[in-house]
C-alpha cells in the first residue's frame, strides 16, 4: 500500500515538474503582443472598429478565429476581420449578416456574443466568460453608428482589398454575386460597367479537365463580357456587389476594376486606384 502511495505521489510530482509556468508579460501589451516603441496602447473600449479590434477581436476572438483553419472561415485578425464581418452573410445562418450596419439586433455576431436564442453552436467567446456588458454595448453602438471602418480608411491607400471569390478560387455553381472590397469607401457614381467588368475567360478547369495553368492569371481563351450590374453595397460603401443577369455557370471568370483613364474607380476624395485590379476564379459544376 505504501509503495503504491509513493508511486502516486511521484507521479503527481512529475506532473507538477512538467507543468509550464505562465508568462510574466514583460514587454507585452495587454493583448500579449510585443510593445512597439511609440506604439499606441489600447485603453478602455470605445465604439469604433479599431478599438473593438484591439480590445476584442485580436486578444480574444483571434485565439481561434485566425489563419487558414479559422472556424466557419471567419478570420478575426486585424487584416481580415472587417471585410469578413460587415455586410457578409453568416455561415451558420445565411439569412442574417454577421454585422448589419445600423441594426445590431439583426447582426448575427451580436447574437453570438450575447448568447441569444436561435444561434447555432455556443455563445462566443466559446468556453470563456462572456464579454463584459460594456464591451457588448460598445460593439452594439459601433454597429448602430453604421459599423464604419474609420481606422482603415484613414490608414490605408485606396486599393482593392479583396474579392469574393478570391483570385484563383474555385467555387461551385451557381454563383449569384461577386464581391469586390476596397480599403476605403467608393464613389458610387463611378460604379458602372466600364469600371467593374466581369468576363468569362475560359472553360471550367475543374469540370473540363483543362490544364491547371489555364486557370492562372492569364487565361488563354478570348474573354467574353458577362452581362452584370455592379452597385455599391448599401450596407458597406467600401464594397461593390456585382450581380450577373444570370447566375454564373461552370467556367473561368475574371473580374476587373478599372483604375486608370477617364471615369476610373475612385474614392470619395476623387483619388483613383491608379492601376487596374483583377481576379480570376473558376466556377465548377455543382455535381
Amino acid at each position: 500500500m505504501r509503495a503504491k502511495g509513493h508511486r502516486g505521489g511521484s507521479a503527481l510530482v512529475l506532473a507538477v515538474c512538467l507543468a509550464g509556468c505562465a508568462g510574466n508579460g514583460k514587454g507585452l501589451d495587454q493583448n500579449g503582443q510585443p510593445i512597439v516603441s511609440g506604439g499606441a496602447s489600447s485603453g478602455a473600449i470605445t465604439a469604433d472598429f479599431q478599438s473593438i479590434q484591439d480590445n476584442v477581436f485580436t486578444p480574444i476572438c483571434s485565439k481561434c478565429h485566425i489563419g487558414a483553419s479559422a472556424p466557419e472561415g471567419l478570420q478575426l485578425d486585424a487584416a481580415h476581420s472587417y471585410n469578413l464581418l460587415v455586410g457578409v452573410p453568416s455561415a451558420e445562418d445565411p439569412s442574417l449578416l454577421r454585422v448589419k450596419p445600423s441594426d445590431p439586433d439583426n447582426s448575427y455576431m451580436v447574437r453570438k456574443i450575447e448568447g441569444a436564442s436561435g444561434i447555432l453552436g455556443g455563445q462566443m467567446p466559446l468556453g470563456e466568460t462572456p464579454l463584459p456588458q460594456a464591451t457588448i454595448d460598445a460593439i452594439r453602438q459601433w454597429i448602430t453608428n453604421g459599423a464604419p471602418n474609420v481606422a482603415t480608411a484613414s490608414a490605408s491607400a485606396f486599393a482593392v482589398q479583396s474579392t469574393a471569390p478570391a483570385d484563383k478560387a474555385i467555387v461551385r455553381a451557381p454563383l449569384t454575386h461577386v464581391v469586390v472590397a476596397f480599403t476605403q469607401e467608393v464613389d458610387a457614381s463611378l460604379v458602372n460597367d466600364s469600371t467593374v467588368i466581369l468576363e468569362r475567360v475560359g472553360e471550367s478547369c475543374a469540370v473540363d479537365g483543362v490544364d491547371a495553368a489555364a486557370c492562372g492569371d492569364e487565361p488563354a481563351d478570348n474573354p467574353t463580357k458577362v452581362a452584370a450590374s455592379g452597385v455599391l453595397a448599401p450596407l458597406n460603401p467600401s464594397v461593390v456587389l456585382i450581380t450577373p443577369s444570370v447566375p454564373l455557370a461552370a467556367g473561368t471568370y475574371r473580374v476587373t476594376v478599372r483604375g486608370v483613364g477617364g471615369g476610373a474607380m475612385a474614392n470619395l476624395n476623387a483619388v483613383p486606384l491608379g492601376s487596374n485590379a483583377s481576379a480570376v476564379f473558376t466556377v465548377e459544376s455543382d455535381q
Partner: protein
Amino acid sequence: MKYRLTNSVWRVLFVLILACGAYTAQSEPYLAVQLGLKCGQCHVNPTGGGLRTTFGDLFAQTVLPANHLDGAADNWTGAVNQYLRAGGDLRFDAAVTTAPNTRSLQQFDLEQTRVYLEADVIPGRLLAYVDEQVAPGGALNREAYVLFWSASHDWYLKAGQMYLPFGFRLQDQTAFVLTATGINMTTPDQGVEFGWEHGHWDAQFAVSNGTAGGAVTGDGKQYSSQLIYVESVWRLGLAANLNDQSGGKKTAYGVFAGLRTGPISWLAQAEVTDDESIANGQGKELATLLEANWLIARGNNLKITDEFLNPNRAVPNGEQTRWSLVYELTPIQFLQIRTGLRYYDGIPQDNSEHQRQYFVEFHGFF
C-alpha cells in the same frame, strides 16, 4: 420464444467480447488507455467520438457506472432494427465563471444535445452515419459520412463531413491542444479519410477542404494524419497536419501518449503549430497537456489536467497555463455528473487569462 438477458449475463458477454478483442468500443481517451483499447472499439467512428458501438453501449451500462438500475427492458444497444442504430448525448451545465475586473457569470447552460444515427446498409462493411447537434439553437450537422470497411476490417475509407484525426479527441473542446491546432469537434471538415488498423497499429490519413466548415475559397487542401501504436498499458502516437491554403500554409505536428499505472490513466500530448497566414509570427504556437485520471472506485473518476500554451514562440513572456480538477461520478447507467474547476493563468495584463470556472455538469447519454 423471446429471451431476456439478465444483467449478469450481459456482463459475462461483455467480458467475453473484451477477451476476444472482437466487437469493442470506448468513450473518452482515458477510458481507452484504462482498458488498453483503441478508440474505435467503443465508437462507430474509428477515430472516436459520437455514437457508441454495441460494445460501447454495454460497457457504459455494465462496467462504467457505480450501480446498475435494473429496468424492465433488456440493455440498450442502440439498435432500432436490424440495420439502424441510434444514440445521443446531452450535456447541461450550471457554472460560475469569474475573471479580474469582470462581472462574474452564473448561468445554467444547455451545452449541447446531439443525436447520432447509423445505418448499416451492408452490415459490417458499409454504413452511413450522421452526428447532428439539435440544441441549443437550430440543427447543426457535425458529421455525415459513408464508411466502407474492408472484409477483414483492417482498412476503411470514409467520405463526407468528419472530425479530422489529430491526437486525442478530448471531451473538453477548449483544451489548449485542441484550440492551438484548430482541429477539434467544433470544426469538422469535408473530405475523405483512409484508415488502417492492423494489430497494435492504427493509422489515418485524411484530405479535406481545410476550411473548418466554412466556404471553399481556393483549391488548397488540408492533409491530416496520425499513427498510433497501442499496447495494453501504454500507447504512443504521432500526428501531422498541413493546411495548404492560398492565404498561407499552416502546419502542426504532435506527439501523444497514454500510460496506465495502477488505477491512474495518464494522457500526454504536445504539439507545435506554424501558421504562415498570420502576420508577425503569431502563428507559432506550442501547446501541451498532461492529464491524470484516477479511478477511485467503480463509477468514480478524478481527473487532474495541466495545460500549457505558448501562443507565440517568437515572443517570450506570453505563456499561459490552465489547471483543471474534475470529479466524474457515474452513479447509474446513462447518467454522469461532473463537477470541477478550471484555473487559468497568463500574463498579468490580460484579465481573460485569469479566469476561474466552477461547474457542475449533468451528462446524459445512450
